[in-house]
């Protein structure tokens, strides 16, 4: 039972990550590979605040979201001016810088040793310590993020995002402030990723920089692409599939050293297969293959 809840909690965290990246990449067409950086920033802000100030859960998570959003804006100012492949490279750079800071600023972040012993959150006097407690907490936050994202994409705001993804010039000619929309959605996505980071830090109670590498960013992007970019349910399906699939390997009885490598091969293979035969993913309406040549 605990194992099942553990998997469900992980799925919840990845749903938050992929749904937020889907706003940026799937709806606005901005192929960001900095998502693990915002995820990590959220986790570290919460961990540091909880460890040093013992501040309450809601304050920590709020600070994580705000700080991640601000950093998103800071990254967005230069990188959103450039398009296509160059935007990918700019976000890649931010991802690498974030990892380097987390890994090398030993005095502050603990460097490669990470931050152990993050205290369990207390919400309105209820100490969340069991798997079931975390499952409920993640479930609530996950639903909230899904609701917010659903409202966004079904609004006229979401319609403009889709127009930007398909034809930026047309959106401008229709009087839409394209730069502002991109900035908004990038900041919102960054803030949402911080929520996932906060949950991860509290749940595992130990974080280190290896959880927030480029590989992690690519993994989150794979969830979006395989699930279906630009659809509401796609990333949820993607998260369920990509989180549970490697768990299946466990039951096949592979030794753990082999399983880790097979996992990577599996993700790579899946991504290639989807790109070739179903570029829009399980449920998506948008494929990057077609979108990229329109800029």
């Amino acid at each position: 039972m605990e194992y099942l809840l553990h998997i469900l909690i992980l799925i919840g965290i990845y749903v938050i990550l992929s749904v937020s990246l889907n706003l940026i990449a799937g709806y606005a067409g901005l192929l960001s590979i900095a998502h693990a950086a915002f995820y990590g920033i959220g986790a570290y802000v919460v961990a540091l605040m909880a460890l040093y100030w013992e501040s309450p859960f809601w304050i920590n998570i709020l600070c994580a979201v705000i700080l991640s959003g601000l950093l998103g804006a800071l990254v967005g100012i230069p990188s959103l001016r450039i398009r296509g492949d160059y935007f990918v490279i700019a976000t890649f750079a931010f991802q690498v810088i974030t990892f380097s800071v987390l890994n090398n600023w030993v005095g502050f972040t603990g460097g490669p040793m990470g931050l152990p012993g993050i205290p369990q959150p207390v919400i309105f006097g209820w100490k969340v310590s069991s798997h079931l407690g975390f499952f409920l907490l993640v479930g609530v936050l996950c639903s909230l993020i899904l609701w917010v994202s659903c409202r966004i994409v079904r609004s006229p705001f979401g319609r403009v995002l889709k127009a930007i993804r398909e034809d930026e010039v047309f959106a401008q000619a229709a009087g839409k402030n394209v730069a502002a929309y991109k900035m908004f959605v990038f900041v919102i996505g960054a803030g949402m990723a911080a929520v996932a980071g906060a949950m991860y830090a509290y749940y595992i109670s130990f974080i280190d920089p290896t959880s927030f590498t480029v590989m992690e960013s690519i993994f989150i992007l794979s969830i979006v692409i395989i699930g279906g970019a630009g659809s509401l349910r796609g990333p949820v399906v993607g998260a369920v599939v990509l989180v549970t699939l490697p768990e299946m390997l466990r039951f096949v009885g592979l030794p753990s050293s082999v399983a880790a490598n097979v996992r990577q091969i599996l993700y790579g293979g899946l991504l290639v297969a989807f790109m070739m035969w179903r570029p829009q993913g399980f449920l998506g309406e948008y494929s990057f293959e077609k979108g990229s040549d329109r800029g």
Partner: protein
Amino acid sequence: MTVALLEAEGLDKCFDGVKALTDFSCAVHEREILGLIGPNGAGKTTLFNVLTGFIPSDSGRVTYRGRALIGLPPYKVARAGVARTFQILRIVHRLSVLENILLAFPNQPGERLRNVFFRPRICRWQEAENRKAANTLLAEVGLAEKRDDPAEALSYGQQKLLSLVCCLATGAELLLLDEPVAGIAPEMNERILEVIRGLPGRGKSVILIEHNLDAVTQVCDRVIFMDAGAKVSEGTPQEVRNDPKVIEAYID
């Protein structure tokens, strides 16, 4: 003489030494359809790009209702009241026909997230109003039954018509139409020209780039002939067609 709606004076634009516009001036009056003709490379589309802020001009000034347009980004030009279509077709292919038009409406409260979350009622109300207006527009141009089809499923002529309707839906008073009937079957051609002819009746003014001289003669009040970035001739369609300089330029 009516009041000039848009005035351009002394526009210059050079691309790596090639002069696309040289000291170009023109004016459009309210409810006027101004035709812009000339050979390929005469600078017609460059003029549109400069007027709408997509390309900065090297010098010159543009005023729309007394307000300077030069230096404004494209979206602000569109909001100020100068909308355009493009020579290559630009619509959102994977949105429905209706959604394409809904996208174009100005000042939508639902385009601000603050309103989406905190004032949902006003967003819904405006969306419903816009839907009505969009349906009326679609019915008027004869695209009503295609309303829920994705825009990419329309024929090329219907797509061009849709891009014109989107331009109209922005609420702009001056529409810059870049070859709205190029490459379209005769029947649809006639329908689009009919819509353009009706624009002054809706209080709109138009600058129309078109190679088809018969179409220009049919719909335009006044025509400017451009060559090598400069104005060569200006007058009624008949005057310009019979201008020896124009005939010479076309024969060259």
